């Protein structure tokens, strides 16, 4: 931790704050003024409000939004810390700040931060070295809060023994959890596992039902698999050429949305 910078303490005066935030809704300015002037602790904004600030900071490039997030982050809001980290994440120069706040937020129990931090350790990003054990630990924290993406990653890590002992059965158990919480990608892989009996007893009926569910969740390989299974040439599948054509048409159209979505 010693290589991480301490957070910049801005120490802006009440007057500066007042000027900086003059365009903001009165309630927020009031809260920030109290925060800055330290009379008594104002109520922390809700998560949606902080995430909106995150949008203004990250996408809207509003310096004042960064300042506000910084203020709430320093007051200990894990959501503000995470949003601040995400705002810093895009800028290579601010990688260390991003990592610093992400770690704070994840330690503060923020699920999203735990997931993003785990990914940074898994891929060696944000100046954090590749560390599968830490990745698994943080994915575990996110998965414990029902994060389906984290459960999918744990499935992958268990399957290949990354950061944990190789365990194909445990890998399928994570797939089941990820699927139960809505990951269409996990549903597709779970369908594959049931189809081949890899890490779980073979069950073609379950394989098919998870394929259907994955396609309903728009996972592109599932849309394609289902379409090709019902276009008239598969002897054992339900024949429905119109649905097959519509599924592929759907997949074609959504190609542009899904190109970067798979984990």
């Amino acid at each position: 931790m010693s290589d991480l910078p301490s957070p910049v303490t801005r120490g802006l005066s009440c007057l500066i704050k007042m000027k900086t935030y003059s365009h903001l809704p009165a309630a927020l300015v009031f809260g920030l003024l109290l925060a800055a002037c330290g009379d008594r602790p104002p109520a922390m904004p809700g998560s949606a409000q902080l995430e909106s600030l995150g949008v203004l900071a990250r996408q809207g490039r509003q310096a004042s939004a960064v300042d506000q997030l910084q203020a709430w982050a320093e007051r200990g809001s894990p959501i503000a810390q995470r949003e601040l980290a995400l705002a810093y994440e895009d800028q290579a120069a601010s990688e260390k700040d991003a990592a610093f706040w992400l770690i704070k937020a994840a330690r503060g129990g923020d699920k999203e931060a735990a997931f993003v931090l785990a990914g940074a350790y898994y891929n060696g990003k944000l100046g954090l070295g590749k560390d599968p054990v830490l990745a698994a630990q943080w994915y575990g924290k996110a998965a414990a809060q029902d994060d389906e993406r984290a459960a999918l990653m744990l499935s992958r890590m268990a399957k290949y023994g990354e950061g944990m002992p190789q365990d194909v059965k445990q890998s399928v158990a994570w797939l089941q959890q990820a699927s139960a919480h809505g990951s269409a990608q996990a549903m597709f892989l779970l369908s594959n596992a049931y189809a081949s009996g890899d890490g779980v007893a073979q069950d073609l009926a379950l394989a098919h039902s998870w394929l259907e569910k994955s396609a309903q969740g728009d996972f592109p390989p599932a849309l394609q698999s289902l379409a090709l299974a019902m276009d008239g040439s598969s002897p054992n599948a339900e024949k429905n050429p119109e649905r097959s054509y519509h599924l592929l048409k759907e997949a074609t159209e959504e190609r542009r949305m899904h190109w970067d979505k798979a984990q």
Partner: protein
Amino acid sequence: MIKNIGRPALAAIAAMTVAACGSSSTPLTQQTPEGSVLKMAILETTDIHSNVLGYNYYALTPDATLGLDRTSTLIQGARAENPNNVLFDDGDVIQGTLLGDYQAQATPVGCNGTLAVHKAMNALKYDGGGIGNHEFNYGLGFLSQITNSDFGVTGVAKPAGTCGAPAFPLVLSNVNSVASQKPIFNPYAVIPKQFAATTPDGKSIQVPLKVGILGFVPPQIMDWDQKNLAGKVYVNGVQESANQYVPQLRSAGADVVVALSHGGLDASPYSPKMENGSLYLSTTGIDALLVGHSHLIFPAAKEAKAPALDASLAALPANIVDSKNGFVNNVPTVMAQSWGRRLGIIQLTLKFTGGKWVIQKPLTTVEARGFKYTDGVTSVAADPAIATLVDSEHKATIAYAQQPLGTTTDFEMSSYFSLAGDVGAIQIVNQAQIDYVKNFIANSTDATLSSYKNIPVISCSAPFKAGRNGPSDFTDVAPNASKASPFSLQVRNPGDLYLYSNNNLQAVKIKGSDLKNWLETSASQFGKIDPNATAEQDLVPSYSTIYNYDVFYAEGNAMQYQIDVTQPVGSRIVNLAYQGKPVAASDDFIVATNDYRAGGGGNFPGIDGSKTIIKSPDASQAVVSSYLQKLGKVTQANNGSGQSWSFVKVATKGPVILRSTPGKLAVAQALGLSRVAAEGALDPSGFSKYAIDLSK
């Protein structure tokens, strides 16, 4: 402040709308008697996706299952039933068919033109429209032009003058320009209507009614269209935006407020980042909610033989969402599926109470009406006026599909004998994919990807079109092409070589052991041949999953392998070599493939998304098309003779056959594929049974 661009145009439209609907000469100044009743319908289309006509531009055949020309018939019917009506579209209008791509990319419509889909919508007299995520697919410049909107975004300039555009207001309240910090479209609009109402004493009067609309798009556009949008715009949450603008709409006098929300219904806790946040608009003071994006039917379809309610909708909490009757927190809500397949109809009854129009909620009805709404069997007819209106664009798109690509080939690129070793329809795809991936890695600024630059890039692709749907279902690009008489490829031919338009190029990084398993799984397409059997044996017992027969290739045909079909599945690959050396289990390879295979399609061992290193936004078809155009000339010597695989030779006592299109022995002979020995009898499905000599 609301951006004022489009304001003059808006006023003009408003005047037109009044003129169009105010057929009665009743003066506007007339007082509406307390207790008067007004019945109206709000009509919705969503996710048209450039399906102006029911037509499949890939197959070049009519398609009666979708299209705005049939929706037009539904609209006319609904208007006849509901003389007081407004028609809105919920976005995802301009992209989705070859017609859309043609008008946006191949021959972009100019400022003086109007997109075919907008022409049709103008003719249908839409009252307003929202913006969907796919509107951003062709970039902000194009969107600015075809909507005649100045976005106030740095580097995006609308052509001077008035460009062809929808003749109705477009609204979007949650996308702002980074430069101006203001909405890029008008966040809302008020549409003045003249409607017939009934006074308490039974008289029919004309009354003014102001319908307010505001629009929303999923914040995920920032990811999906990153390269078009990053640094230029930002997307606020739908609820925050509604909370800002609904009161403004009310202040502007809107009697009825309708949200055009291009997003589905999701009951997860609210976040301004959520993709399908429409449910959270229901508590912002709106009167009706038009949703889309998910391409689903809401409320549940009512016609006979209707599809069941989608599971994701059925799972929504019943105390919030009434999926049978179409309400979210008691706000009438409709989603008209996609591609013009349905029309959303919300019928409202309003009573003039205390000097204002009050919606009589118990009288509200909601329907998502499909083509077969009358009896579940009979489809409505297409409105021929739409076809007439866009005839030139439609024909131009078909001509575009058939126009020369600018590339010739000197050989017949076919899949008749792909399972006997011919790579004529596959090698070019592999070469295109290798070229793409090598460039991608060479130009990448990502440190991890750059570190892979010394790993060999190989590629795989399959005979996608090889008998799955009968004896005529084989790829055959450039029949009869020869060195003496090369064939000029058409724009649509990359779609023959690469059948699936839904695939994106992806690359995976694997070990030699993974490659061996991959090839074994591919080789499972072959039947197990018993050399001692005297009865006829099928080399390929079924073509149903032949798209999983991946053929690998390395530049210069440097990868070679053999398949021993006498062995059981899993033990068939022998003599796997790269650059003349046996492939070791620990060797690294980068394989160019597609998102289907890389993500686990076909259930290949270890290929499950975990090894994906490149996720390209580019379609595999486009990759093939670009490469063909770059080559200019495709030759058998360079692009069709790199046979990377063969069978382990074995003499069989009985006949081994491969089913293919009748009359194609000459194709095999021209390729020098001597193992295709003779053409035999027809099977009951019409395939010829070609004799395969595995000792050759």
